[in-house]
């Protein structure tokens, strides 16, 4: 069985982000290098999925509302101004979390760390923080498209 410490999480989630953007949105994203202490300001949306089994943790994708609108338009094949409600944006960010979470889950299962995935949840607003406790591995990946920046974070707790 693999230990979670040996997993190249950053590469795994980077590949997943690339694939989702390219396949579903026909958008190229630039993956940002380095460590990030910065956070997004203003109205933002966080899509999360959790996984539990031999390994436990969660994935979060965080974008501001404008980037969320752009992503939604890309996925639905429309112009950003045609996206009228936040419900559509939440649905798309939730689905992206599901796809990226599903990809990571598959890699974990194939590495001998079987786990189950939750359905996505959405948090939105201006002034909030989400904390994950007791994790032993954490990766934060930044991605940029047309001047918009988003973040993808993975928290893993432990092998059981």
């Amino acid at each position, binding site marked *: 069985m693999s230990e979670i410490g040996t997993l190249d999480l950053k590469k795994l989630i980077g590949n997943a982000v690339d694939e989702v953007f390219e396949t579903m949105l026909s958008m190229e994203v630039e993956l940002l290098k380095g460590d990030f202490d910065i956070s997004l300001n203003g109205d933002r949306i966080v899509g999360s999925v959790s996984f539990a089994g031999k390994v436990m943790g969660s994935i979060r994708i965080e974008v501001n509302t404008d980037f969320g609108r752009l992503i939604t338009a890309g996925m639905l094949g*429309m112009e950003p101004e045609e996206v009228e409600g936040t419900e*559509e944006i939440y649905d798309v960010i939730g689905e992206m979390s599901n796809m990226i979470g599903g*990809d990571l889950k598959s890699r974990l299962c194939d590495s001998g760390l079987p786990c189950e995935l939750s359905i996505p949840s959405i948090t939105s607003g201006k002034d909030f923080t989400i904390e994950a406790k007791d994790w032993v591995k954490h990766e934060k990946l930044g991605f940029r498209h047309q001047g918009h920046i988003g973040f993808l974070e993975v928290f893993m707790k432990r092998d059981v």
Partner: protein
Amino acid sequence: MPLKVLTVDDSKTIRMIVKKAFKPFDCLISEAENGVEGLAFAAKEKPDLIVLDITMPVMNGIEMLTKLKEDPVLKEVPVIMLTAESGKDNVLKIVKMGVNDYVVKPFKGEQLIERAKAIVSLEPKKEESRVNDSAKQYFPKDGDIQRLVIPGKADRPVIADIEGHLDPKIKEMADSGMQKFVLDLSQVGGINVSLVKLIITMKEKFQKQDIRMRIVAPSDVGKELKEFQETSEIAVDESIEQASQAF
């Protein structure tokens, strides 16, 4: 006879992508948000193909597939599974359950169609029937009144679609001597710029053809219309019956 395709997914986005993928083909696409709704629809309509997501609330795709395969009537309905999980255990699991094929998310509509074509016969939709299908859903007739029903989500693509049918519909009304037109906004939650532009266009075109237009709308939408100079003079009723009597 159009092919009956059922898409079962909790994500409206994915259902829209599936619908869009099948749109060029002679298909009737129906939607369900979870396995329970999907099973109920399948039992009632017996679709020719089911595109089934795995991760859903209420009843997931695996459970729905299990129940489908236990049902003597529905067990032969072909199923394409949509899954975000490409791991070999997951793939083996769903293949063993008897799915005809699977598509791993993220996916393109073309990939789904390619898999569907290997299972069912997809005929391209004729252009004429595509236009007629689209027009029929917006323009029902009530006796001597031509209605235009604006769907709840009146965004720019929907309004553009309706605009495309407007001139032929006006010509059809003129040819048959119809002069009463009701713009039905009962399902619309609010006014947007695209909708106001459509109303102004219709008002101008109807004036030239001597067609009388009334609007049916909830009171709050009616009030919003009164705030625009261009639409403030159009008569607004709260029901079709009221509009019919007012004519």
